[in-house]
């Protein structure tokens, strides 16, 4: 990735709980806060979102207006995404990352990213944006029941994304085939 990793994080209480668990299970491991941290998953997903913005066409895109990326999730996820792509340019439009807390606010963004694996919550944020020119992105197990256009999933330890073919047909935005060729196109629930 382009930036150097510089995150020395304070060990929160939850980390201590994890250490106690490990000791209980007979592990004599020193888990340290300054352990080498891999690219956090959400940093990679943010990079994907930036790339989506490059290959999606919105119906009205006045020059220079920001591409607003609304993020639903914890403060930590929002800050990771913001740090990764806020301010970057797609053509002449800058990316602006905002935290979204109210369900009806999602539709006021060009991109809406609902993090977390909670299909019911995701549905509530995605529904107001359906039918509007919003690229809706989720990362749930039950993708097709949520109504979003794109869904992140992990396959063999790498981030991948799936596109809902039905939502794609109905979408108010155009998705370039240069993005679709990397997508897993899904149409109905697979076991």
């Amino acid at each position, binding site marked *: 990735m382009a930036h150097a990793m510089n995150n020395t994080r304070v060990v929160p209480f*939850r980390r201590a709980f994890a250490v106690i668990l490990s000791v209980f299970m007979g592990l004599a*491991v020193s888990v340290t806060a300054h352990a080498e941290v891999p690219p956090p998953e959400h940093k990679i997903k943010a990079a994907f979102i930036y790339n989506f913005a490059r290959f999606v066409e919105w119906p009205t895109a006045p020059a220079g207006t920001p591409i607003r990326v609304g993020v639903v999730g914890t403060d930590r996820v929002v800050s990771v995404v913001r740090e990764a792509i806020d301010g970057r340019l797609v053509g002449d439009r800058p990316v602006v990352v905002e935290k979204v807390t109210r369900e009806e606010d999602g539709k006021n963004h060009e991109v809406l990213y609902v993090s977390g694996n909670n299909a019911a919550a995701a549905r509530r944020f995605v529904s107001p944006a359906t039918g509007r020119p919003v690229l809706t992105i989720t990362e749930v197990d039950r993708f097709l029941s949520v109504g979003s256009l794109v869904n992140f999933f992990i396959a063999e330890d790498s981030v991948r994304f799936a596109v809902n073919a039905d939502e794609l047909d109905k979408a108010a935005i155009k998705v370039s085939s240069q993005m679709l060729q990397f997508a897993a196109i899904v149409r*109905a629930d697979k076991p």
Partner: protein
Amino acid sequence: MDFSDLMKIKVVSVQHRETDLRTTPAPTFVLTSEDIRRSAATSVPDVLRLVPGLEVARVSGNSWAISARGLNGTAANKLLVLVDGRTVYSQVFAGVFWDVQDIPLDSIERIEVILGPGGSLYGANAVNGIINIIRKPATQRQGTAASVTAGSEDRFIGDVSQGWKAGRNAQAVAYAHYREFDALKRFGSSGGNNDEGRFGSGGFRADGVAGDHDWSVSSDVYSGEFHASRTVLSLTAPAREASDFTEVNGQNVIGKVRSKVDSGVVTVQAYYDRTERRIPDFFSEIRDTGEVEFHHEVNAGRRNTFTWGASFRATADRIGNSFSISWDPQNEFNKIYSLFAQDEFRVTPNLFFTLGSKFEHNDYTGWELQPSARAGYTITPDQFLWAAVSRAVRTPSRLDADARILLAVQPGPTTLEVQGGERFDSEIVTAYEAGYRARPAERVYVSLTAFYNRYDDLRSLEQGAPQFVNAPVPYTRIPLFEDNKIWGESYGGGVAPQMDLFSWWRVKAQYSLIHLRLHNDADSLDFITGRTEGNDPQHQALFMSSWNLPHRIELDAYVRWVDELKNLNVDDYTAVDLRLGWAATKNWSVEAVGRDLFRPPHREFSGTAEVEPSVYGKVSWRTR
């Protein structure tokens, strides 16, 4: 970075691992194809040892005793096992012949295990759990792949597969598999246990999309022979050891269509299965089974998901008699009809209830009802709590209804024989379970489960009045009539934490506990069964560590401890498995594995076979 670069980066994502915070109100556990690949296992029963709460004991070269939540035995009958939705549970003795479930591990997409009664969705005989082995669709098996394994225990395992695109919206794959395995060691001698064998299988599969429909069709054939020894009893001669070959073969074809409709999703599946098994002078069976199943998942409003379905299964058999086991009738045709319905109702965004039941009709006991009520509560996005109450039944098998089994011959001669019959009713379990799943830190995951089972009408063998029989020679027969005069309780649970210490080092631990007590009814004349139904280890623990090292080297270590089996005089044991893997190039990879290391051979169950340390090497090649 562009898409193709991003997709090459490895991430640590506890969020999306299969063992992550699923909001399933049941103790589910999933073995992914990665878990299977990184294991030291070469067969399905071996890889099931990694599932918390499952008891897996090797009995001989070709047989295992596998159960969940107790009541294990070579004829363990409380677990429902499916392969791609096809039941591989045998109608003959209500258990699974594991020797013919030798599915190549590289062809498995995942194995889902749900402990506890799954009666409401899966039907009868899922008393203590369900194992669903899901194989990879043709989309995941494109190109050419081949692998060869050679070792001290598994002498040779060869697999080839060829996948190709079959039209714009379909893929197909054809594959073949062959295994030859050596005998285990014999307890109390320096020689082998004479239980070696070989098995071959092949098949094809096609998957595709046609508009709103996903379809898939697959077909397999298999054949094998397994060396086994048995004690042959006779009225006129002393008991002798017979050593011969069990022959098995079978074919099946499965088709499935999943369609998106206005109201939700409809799935229709049908399969035909033929299986043949021949154990000389003991048992033979030819069985044809056909089943059609229909499933409809309905989006009934914002808060409701309603699923219902119906199925019909018919099975016809021809079973051969021997002096040791005889059957009346020898040929039978059995039908099972079932209907199920389940509703998931979301009270608040964080709280949901599931209520469902299966209604199943079989030819022995008529209608059986298997209801289940479950609740799930998301305390915080990182914590999920669930509880369930269910009832499930284990219906009579051919063995329970129609067989006469010779257990012993004593001087007289006097025989002790198990007599099945109409008296035997279904066994019942009422299970109370609860569990908790949490992600206390970003790369830490833990699940806890607890259960209490109440068993009623468990199989008992009631001694009857002696009968005098004149043929082939005059003898006295003491019948043990199959009845249901045992009840019992079990309780226990497990904990399974998992942690990614670094992006390249993951550790997992599992611990499970079972406490089982069986009692006879006051009027029971059973003096045997209390022992045979209680062959379970009280404690089991597993610790595993996986390292991703530089130069695409992988190292995996597994340490497993299984408590003693008091009834069978089997000591507790610790087994260490080590795996070293190297992805040499994009197409080639090699593995070296050692199993059951650092300790002398040990028995895992009844019988004379001992598992001894073994090693194997594997070379794999694939295009892509």
